[in-house]
């Protein structure tokens, strides 16, 4: 299946196009990719991105490219479960220039809503300790630290903290109305 197109007030989330790969290959090659298992050399990044594109076919969920309504590419967000993950994860990455404007939060709320509407009852975000921006965003989205959650195979609490998202606390305005 192709990625469904999601809209938010400022953003469009849609399946990856070739131009995204160029920007993401560049991103994955930098120190900004350290929380994603990078930095990856460009040739490895292409292979990684190709496997990300395949997730919709293989799993029925996957990643979106995030762009502004005028088509400026901002980053990637998705829900994926590689085989060493015990649960499905919500993860996000923005290009450096796109940070600080609340785009990740806006995109994540749309993805969470899509997930709850499509039968998911819980999602996790695996965050490297010290990645304070991601922790803050997870908390703004209504996720809570889940110290009981299983960790990705081969990882310890020193590598990963688990934040859990639930449909009744997704951080959307309705949750607080």
């Amino acid at each position, binding site marked *: 299946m192709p990625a469904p197109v999601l809209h938010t007030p400022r953003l469009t989330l849609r399946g990856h196009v070739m131009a995204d*790969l160029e920007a993401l290959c560049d991103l994955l090659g930098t120190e900004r990719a350290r929380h994603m298992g990078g930095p990856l050399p460009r040739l490895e990044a292409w292979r990684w991105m190709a*496997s990300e594109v395949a997730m919709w076919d293989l799993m029925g969920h996957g990643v979106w490219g995030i762009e502004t309504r005028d088509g400026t590419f901002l980053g990637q967000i998705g829900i994926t479960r590689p085989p060493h993950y015990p649960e499905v994860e919500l993860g996000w990455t923005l290009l450096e220039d796109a940070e600080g404007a609340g785009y990740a939060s806006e995109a994540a709320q749309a993805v969470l809503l899509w997930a709850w509407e499509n039968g998911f009852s819980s999602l996790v975000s695996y965050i490297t300790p010290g990645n304070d921006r991601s922790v803050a965003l997870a908390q703004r989205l209504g996720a809570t630290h889940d110290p009981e959650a299983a960790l990705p195979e081969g990882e310890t609490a020193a590598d990963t903290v688990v934040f859990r998202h639930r449909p009744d606390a997704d951080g959307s305005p309705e949750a607080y109305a």
Partner: protein
Amino acid sequence: MIVPNAPQLETERLILRGPDAGDAEAMIAFLLDRERADGFGGYDHRGDAWRWFALNVGHWHLRGYGYFTIEMKDTGKPAGISGIWNPEGWPEPEIGWVVFEGYEGRGIAREAAERVRRYAYEDLGLKTLTSNIVPGNTRSIALAERMGASYERTYQNHHMGEDLLYRHPGPDEVLG
């Protein structure tokens, strides 16, 4: 079939079709078998092998071609893969082939690869094709030569290290 742009090809004994989620375990088993997969690019961890399986599906999306699953007509089981491979950093599109354990010695790789070569020239419109083979993979070298390919040069492959580039006969010769 999960890859919408993969055609289905047939030979006497085989169906070549796009990769399917149900093929993943057979492919992962092959990739984790170092002895068999080293000439192709094997892995030690299941997660990495699974990533390769997903990479091939993504390759179909990004390039419009990739590795077909070779399915036996008589049993419906996957016997290997063959296709056109050209990820970022590859010297040029190549025909590749893999036969899973239990399916060797029956001419399956040749039957599949010759069909794939015809598809690459007829349907994709490619003008030339190579096969990249690691030194010492004598079975693959023998098959490339039986298909009329000849050694052209040795180069450094980003993934495989030193690699031999064999050049196949062109479309005029193959399509006759």
